[in-house]
C-alpha cells in the first residue's frame, strides 16, 4: 500500500512542477508580446524542452502506476485525471511557444502596431489557467465550474479583437503583417482558455465521477 501512496504523491508532485513551469511560460510569452521583451521570448523557448521532458516522465509514472499497482476507485480516477491534465499542460506549453514566436515576429516589424488591447484578454486567459490549476490542487469543484463559465467571455473577446484588428488592417497596409500576428496571438490566448476548461472538466470528473465534457451548459 505504501508504494501506491508514494507513487501517487510523486505523480502529483511532478504534475505540480509542470503546472508551474507552464504558468510561467505563458506569463513570459504574454510579457514578450506586451512589453516587446526578446529575452522573455527566449525563456519560453528554453523552458519548452523541460516541459516536454516532464510530459513524457509523467506519462511513464502514470502508466507504471496503472500497470503495477492497479489502483482502484478514487486513485484510479486521480491517475486518469493526471494523464489528461498532463496532456493539456503540454499543449499549453506549445501555445506559449507560438505566442513567443509571434512576439519575436512583431519585434522585427518596428513600432507601428494596431492599437488593440491584448492585456485584458491575456489576463482573463491567464486567470482561467491559474484557477484551473488551483482547482486541481484543491480538488475544488466550485472553482472548476467558474473556469467553465469564463470560457464564453474569452470567445467573445477573441471575436471582438478579430473585428477591431481587421479594421486596422483594412485601413492601413502597414498594419497587415502585425495585424495577422495579433490575430494569431488572440487565438492562442483563446486556445489557452480552452485548455484551462479542459483541465476544469477533468477536475470535475475526478471529484464527481461525472463526465461533463460537451455539456457545459448543464452546469
Amino acid at each position, binding site marked *: 500500500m505504501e508504494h501506491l501512496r508514494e507513487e501517487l504523491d510523486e505523480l502529483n508532485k511532478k504534475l505540480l512542477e509542470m503546472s508551474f513551469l507552464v504558468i510561467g511560460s505563458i506569463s513570459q510569452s504574454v510579457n514578450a508580446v506586451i512589453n516587446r521583451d526578446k529575452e522573455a521570448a527566449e525563456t519560453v523557448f528554453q523552458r519548452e524542452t523541460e516541459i516536454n521532458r516532464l510530459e*513524457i516522465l509523467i506519462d511513464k509514472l502514470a502508466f507504471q502506476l496503472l500497470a503495477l499497482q492497479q489502483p482502484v476507485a478514487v486513485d484510479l480516477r486521480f491517475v486518469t485525471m493526471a494523464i489528461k491534465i498532463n496532456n493539456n499542460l503540454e499543449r499549453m506549453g506549445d501555445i506559449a511557444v507560438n505566442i513567443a514566436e509571434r512576439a519575436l515576429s512583431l519585434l522585427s516589424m518596428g513600432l507601428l502596431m494596431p492599437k488593440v488591447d491584448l492585456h485584458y484578454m491575456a489576463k482573463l486567459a491567464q486567470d482561467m489557467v491559474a484557477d484551473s490549476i488551483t482547482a486541481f490542487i484543491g480538488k475544488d469543484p466550485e472553482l472548476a465550474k467558474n473556469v467553465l463559465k469564463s470560457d464564453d467571455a474569452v470567445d467573445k473577446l477573441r471575436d471582438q479583437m478579430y473585428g477591431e484588428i481587421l479594421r486596422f*488592417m483594412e485601413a492601413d497596409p502597414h498594419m497587415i503583417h502585425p495585424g495577422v500576428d495579433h490575430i494569431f496571438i488572440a487565438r492562442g490566448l483563446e486556445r489557452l482558455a480552452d485548455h484551462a476548461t479542459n483541465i476544469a472538466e477533468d477536475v470535475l470528473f475526478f471529484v464527481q465521477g461525472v463526465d461533463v465534457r460537451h455539456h457545459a451548459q448543464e452546469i
Partner: protein
Amino acid sequence: MRHMDEQLQELLERLLLMGRLAESMIALALRSLIERNDLLGAEIYIKEEEVNNLQIEIDDSAVKLTALQQPVGGDVRFLFMASRIATELERIGDQTVNIIQNTHHVLKAPALKPLVDLPVMGEIAEKMVRDSLDSLIARDCSLAAHVLEEEAKVDAYRDQIFRVLLTYMMADPGTVERALALILISRNLERIGDHATNIAEEVIYLVEGREVRHRHDIALA
C-alpha cells in the same frame, strides 16, 4: 481473458468509427470551401455531435475496463492510447468546424483567386489522418513514420499560403477579410496534420515501445 479481448476489439472499432467520421468531416469542410457551398456546414455540426459522444463513450470504456478488469501492461497502454487518440480525433472534428466558420467569411465576397494550394494541403492532411488510423489497424510503424514525414510538407504549404495571401492583402485592403479567413483555414489544416502525427506517435509507441514524441528524428531514423 477472452472477454477482455472482445472489449478491446469493440473499443478499437468505436475508435475507427470515430476516425471515419473525422475523415468525412475534413472532406466535407474542404468541399464546402472549394465548391463555395455554405450549406455543408449543417452536416458537419451533426457529425461533430456524434464525434463528441464517441469520445466520451471511449473515455468511459477505457476507465471502466481498467477498473473492472484490472488489465496489465500492454492492455493498459492500449486503453489509454485509445482514449488519447479519441481526444486527437475530437480535436480534428473541432478544426473542421473552425474551417466551416472561416469559410463563411471567405464566401462573403467573390473568390479572391483560384484556390491552388489549399485543396492540395487539405488532401495531404486528410490522407495523414487516414494513414495514421490505418497504421493503427495494421500495427504498421513504417506507415506511421510516413505520417510524421508528411508534417514538413503541410508546414511548407502553410508558409507558402501565408506569403501569397499577405501579398494580396498588402496590395488591396478589400481582400483582407477573405485572405485572413483563408490563412486561418490553412492553420486549421496544419493543426489537423498535427493531430494526425500525434496519433502516429501513439501507434509507434504501442507497436515498438519507442517514445517518439518531441523526437521525430528517432522515429524517422
